[in-house]
């Protein structure tokens, strides 16, 4: 689809924030139009990157789950195993990738809680690796177009 959907949404945002905004007479109306413009810009950014972000993150989290599984036992191991066994997304629809992301990130929570209870150096190292992944996950979700 050309023009790119991201460009279309950018055009929507520019129109809302410039042409439409100056026609609005109430503070609430101005706020609503401003928010709509901001959302259009953010959605444009997310449209282009969402699949890449989710594929990268699912791959990274699965690697951590595989490496962390031997460090935990009992119910935690079962939860982590279940997350690892979650089938990869069957296609590249964002909704499919997001469903996989939810499953592996739930497993990551279980693994994280599990290694916190283990005092070995390997568990401490895994704890730090998980925190590093979580920090990276916030960078993946940052918006360059964030206004607030």
């Amino acid at each position, binding site marked *: 689809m050309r023009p790119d959907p991201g460009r279309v949404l950018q055009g929507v945002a520019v129109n809302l924030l410039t042409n439409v905004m100056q026609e609005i007479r109430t503070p609430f109306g101005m706020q609503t139009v401003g928010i709509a413009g901001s959302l259009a810009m953010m959605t444009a950014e997310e449209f282009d990157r969402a699949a890449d972000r989710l594929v990268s993150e699912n791959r990274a989290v699965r690697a951590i789950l595989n490496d962390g599984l031997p460090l935990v036992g009992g119910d935690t191991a079962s939860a982590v195993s279940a997350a690892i066994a979650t089938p990869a997304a069957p296609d590249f629809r964002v909704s499919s990738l997001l469903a996989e992301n939810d499953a592996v990130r739930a497993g990551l929570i279980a693994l994280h809680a599990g290694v916190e209870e283990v005092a070995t150096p390997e568990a401490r190292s895994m704890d730090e690796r998980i925190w590093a992944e979580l920090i990276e996950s916030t960078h993946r979700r940052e918006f360059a177009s*964030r206004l607030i």
Partner: protein
Amino acid sequence: MEAQLARYLEAKLPAEHVRVSNLFRIPGGASRETWMFDASWHESGEEKVEAFVVRKDPPASLLETDREAEYAFYSTFWGSKVPVPRMRWLEPDASILGGPFFIMDRILGCESATRVIIAPPFTDVQPEIAQNMYEILAVISTFDWKGSPAARVAGAPTPETAWEQELGHWERIINEQELSPQPIMRGAIRWLRANPPPPAQRISVVHGDYRVGNFLYQADGSIHGIVDWEMAHLGDPIEDLAWSFNESWQWAKDGRPGGIVDRGTAIAVWERASGLTADRAALHWWEVFSHVKCQGIWLTGARSFQEGRTNELILPLVAYTLINGQDQYLLRTMGRIA
């Protein structure tokens, strides 16, 4: 809505022909719709005009709170050293305006906007505003709430259980509202449970959303109204102090709470005025907790919008920006990132 409000006031006021004018909705109010209006009527041969605020429950919002409790906390402080608007009527009947609501007097001649307080000419009076803000918080923290309307609607925890009550409450909200797993918040919740704060020095009224943006101020630095009591409860007074420091309300993006004061000054003013101590371990615990609570609020709004219970655009905007932002603010408070 003018006609419905006029009919409602005619039943409440000693007047027959009430005229409602200048009705408009104000920005913000992400948990309850906030509308301003003027009402005029004849009483004892004289024309009377009063300015009101109506807070109405929307179909869905960032928060699902009890308007009766909010009304009670406002009423508790009416006439005290904590400036609040006078509550007028609490109406549970949703058929009148399309949702339950309450009406309060409108405090005139004040600013509340966060973008205004961080810009000239208000930058010159930020020290006075901050002094007043934390002195008023000290009054709230030391207020004798026993026998007040607040005591009738809010349960009091013990000093030992105040933290657990709040953490449990907000963890339940995250459990119910999250649309996707929240591994960073889950890590914080485990840390909070493993490292409880010292017992509260006293059980106080906790405003629950005490920050720049929730009070009305003037150009001389005075504060004339503390508003948005919808999350008020009884608990550890350190909770409000910590909440006011949250990075989500560092409006000037300069590391200063509210964009108006440095932490040390805020703590010193509050300690001096309240006679209480801001124990540093307790303060840190409640600051970490404040991120969990914020996330519970943002997640509630995200689910409301996702499920189609509202089309308020502020909710996805908050979700897109603050859910990830709050994770980052939490990581900073926990020392995981600079």
